């Protein structure tokens, strides 16, 4: 299926860009007329994925983060967050709640939060090549807020 509208964004993996990334994707999603809850879901999920790129993929360096988003006729938004960083050795383990390689202040809940706020989360990763996280969410919108 082809998206009816799409956008691309390339940012440096600096933590100051986290707010910019989630606000930009949320602004793009606004054309689906989401309710406040749905906008918050998107903002939070994007924030988690972008933070992963910054703290894990490009841990010791600054690299590029590529964000693509497409909107489909059925009210679905798909967001791809891609990096060319270190890659994830064991994706299944990385997605387990509370698992973190960093410890300390990282809760290990990034993927759990993405999964709880999106309909689908897909992760493809290759060591030394990078990671793509694809988020998908159907926007029911303001009219059908209780449906």
């Amino acid at each position, binding site marked *: 299926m082809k998206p009816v509208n799409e956008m691309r964004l390339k940012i440096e993996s600096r*933590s100051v860009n986290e707010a910019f990334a*989630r606000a930009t994707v949320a602004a793009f999603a606004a054309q689906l007329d989401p309710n406040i809850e749905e906008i918050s879901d998107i903002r939070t999920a994007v*924030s*988690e994925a972008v*933070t992963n790129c910054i703290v894990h993929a490009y841990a010791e360096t600054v690299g590029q983060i590529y964000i693509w988003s497409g909107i489909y006729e059925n009210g679905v938004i798909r967001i791809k967050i891609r990096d060319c960083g270190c890659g994830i050795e064991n994706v299944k383990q990385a997605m387990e709640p509370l698992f973190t390689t960093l410890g300390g202040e990282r*809760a290990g809940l990034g993927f759990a*939060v993405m999964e709880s706020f999106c309909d689908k989360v897909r992760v493809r990763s290759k060591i030394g090549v990078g990671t793509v996280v694809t988020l998908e969410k159907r926007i029911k919108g303001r009219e059908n807020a209780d449906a």
Partner: protein
Amino acid sequence: MAVKISVTPLRLTIAVSGEIDHHNAAVLRLEADEAIQSSLCKTVRIDFGEVTFMDSSGIGFVMGRYRIVSSYGGAVEVVNLSERLYSMMKLAGLDRLVKLSKKEKGKEKI
């Protein structure tokens, strides 16, 4: 993001406003820990009433403060949570470590 800190003999209150993400959690952590370490209050209250956005960094922030405060025998409570923040913290199992309470009805914000 901004932090307001107030201390009484019995309680340290850390009131956070704005957005909590990985970027500004670093500053938040510094300010909170400085206040915690200089007061060593038995009760540390974290007020999230004016928080407009939080991702899992906010959960990490609460977990980290819980570790520090419980290490000297104190307790942490998180107050004025919106429905959304409350359910995120429950999802993370924070209710087993700290006391969570929601915002009063009628004052609900997102």
